[in-house]
């Protein structure tokens, strides 16, 4: 028997077809903010190696309106990126049972997110007051 003639639809533009796919693409694209901020810190590290003067010039270059604005945007995008990781965290875990009951997915998501907020606050506190 010969294989039946079939028609395969093109896949191009698949991510535009559905809100779920668009959210996925947004989630993936926010990694650009993570990369950009990592590069910014890397430049800072290089300036630090070059000496005090270079490092302070780098700090001053960031303390202008545009860099502050861009860093705020990056912070929002990175926060969203982090949240999407917690959202998919249950998918990566085996079932967790506590007291004979399965821990619901939303509890896992919430505990991850709360832990991240607490850790961020501790870092912020240490940075500001220690």
């Amino acid at each position: 028997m010969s294989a039946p003639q079939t028609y395969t639809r093109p896949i191009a533009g698949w991510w535009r077809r559905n809100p779920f796919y668009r959210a996925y693409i947004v989630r993936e694209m926010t990694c650009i903010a993570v990369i950009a901020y990592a590069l910014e810190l890397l430049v800072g590290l290089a300036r630090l190696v070059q000496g005090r003067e270079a490092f302070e010039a780098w700090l001053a270059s960031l303390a202008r309106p545009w860099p502050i604005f861009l860093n705020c945007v990056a912070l929002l995008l990175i926060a969203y990126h982090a949240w999407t990781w917690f959202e998919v965290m249950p998918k990566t875990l085996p079932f967790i049972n506590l007291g004979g009951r399965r821990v619901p997915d939303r509890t896992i998501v919430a505990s991850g997110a709360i832990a991240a907020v607490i850790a961020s606050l501790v870092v912020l506190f240490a940075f500001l007051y220690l």
Partner: protein
Amino acid sequence: MAEPQTRNIRIESLRYAPGADATPRMQAWDVPFTDDMSVLQGLQYIKDHLDGSLTFRWSCRMAVCGSCGMQINGVPKLACETFLRDYMPAIRVEPLANFPIMRDLVIDQSDFLAKLESVRPYLIPQAPRTLAEGPYRQTPAQMDEYYQYSQCINCGLCYAACPQYGMNMKFTGPAALALLHRYNSDSRDAGKAQRMEVVNAEDGVWGCTLVGYCSEVCPKGVDPARAVNQNKIESTKDYFRHLLMPRGSGSR
């Protein structure tokens, strides 16, 4: 008792006849329906009264057989448990995305079925038991570990939802990997080492980028994305086990 109220809805369906059509086309009908009618019943009305050539798969009419999966307004759904009343004034049906179309709403599922077979979807016990030794026993907690993954009805909605499968048909895909996980997490099974070959392969779990839409569209709550992504951890563990103990761990 009052007669159920009848309204009209416009049902637009993709049509494709191999040999006659070079590319698919759309055709629409005005279909009378009552509030209790599913999309499947709407299609059956078309076939019985308006156009007998419209081709689609169906069997049980109650979300058990997994035959009537199709794109309904672009979303993979079972036509039998989707109601026309929710789509007034018009609804568009197409064959499940990512699969080759055979005719109208019927897709070619041969690749999907081959993938289900490829994961050794049966219990591979450590040591075979004789009838006299009785059944393999299992606690409710042990059953809980795999129960949801065993609810798959092979409807293919998750493959239609998976862009990675759409872009690379070699990807083993959500349902087959969930089925693999169903057997791997069964306390009576000892076939994990054999199945790791599928998990670790280039087109195994690493073909997944966790879009997660497969779990969203699953009509039976199987959560294939969870099965796939847990096996990324298993695959990583397996990799390091072989790196540290090249001989003797026996799972490749």
